């Protein structure tokens, strides 16, 4: 863990480093502002999916250590989402607040995006150990199921803004569906076991 955590931290920074490198080298195409914005949004969603894959990964491998990377991965999802929003406000719209407000109210994919960002901000703000303690593990866990909603919202946000080629949003949606499906299957299995156990008790 002592070497794994910093290694994963560095790995999480590589998309950002690549972006900065490409921006400096002029490698972002004809519309670099759009490219920056899209890239950051893509990676915010990917980090959200990576974070959501921690639990299935732990269950599949039987190694509990994965969970100790989860907070950091989640915070990276928030960081990329923050940069995504910042690039929309500061680069794409250049702080044209009336236009931004009109977008939020009128364009449903922007409304959804803002809701997802708000959810991620709540999750990030309640991620320190002291706050987990103050909330209590149970309530904290319940609050952090918001991550599922954020994932669903982020995939919708992606689908709604795309013009023609739905392949990439579909791939991300399929990954999300698999990750949430895994949890649902686990829950149903546990429920089945519980009712079976209860029945046993009743018959005894």
């Amino acid at each position: 863990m002592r070497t794994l955590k910093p290694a994963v931290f560095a790995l999480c920074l590589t998309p950002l480093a690549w972006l900065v490198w490409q921006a400096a080298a002029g490698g972002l195409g004809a519309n670099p502002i759009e490219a920056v914005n899209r890239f950051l949004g893509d990676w915010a969603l990917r980090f959200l999916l990576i974070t959501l894959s921690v639990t299935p990964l732990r269950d599949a491998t039987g190694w509990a250590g994965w969970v100790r990377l989860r907070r950091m991965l989640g915070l990276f999802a928030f960081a990329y989402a923050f940069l995504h929003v910042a690039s929309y406000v500061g680069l794409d719209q250049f702080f044209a607040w009336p236009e931004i407000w009109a977008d939020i109210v009128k364009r449903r994919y922007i409304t959804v995006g803002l809701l997802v960002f708000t959810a991620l901000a709540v999750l990030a703000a309640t991620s320190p150990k002291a706050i987990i303690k103050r909330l209590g593990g149970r309530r904290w866990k319940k609050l952090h199921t918001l991550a599922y909603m954020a994932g669903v919202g982020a995939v919708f946000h992606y689908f709604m803004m795309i013009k023609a080629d739905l392949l990439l949003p579909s791939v991300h949606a399929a990954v999300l569906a698999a990750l949430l499906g895994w949890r649902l299957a686990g829950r149903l299995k546990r429920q089945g076991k519980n009712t079976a156990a209860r029945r046993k008790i009743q018959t005894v």
Partner: protein
Amino acid sequence: MPGETMPATSWNMSSPSEYGFYSNVNPTVSHPRWSQARERRIGDFLKRKTLEFNGYAEQVAPLYAGMDLAKNF
């Protein structure tokens, strides 16, 4: 006979709910999903106001005379 029926256009074929036959960018009418009031020219950082008929209003606006461009888009 040519001209009897409206020919198909690519944007209209791709998403008919969002692009009509003309597929003009009209700054006063929003695309269903985004504003068309401003544009960023390639190489510019700041957006500028989009001109009606791409700035050729004087030459082409009469062609659309009497049309409701919010409906014929």
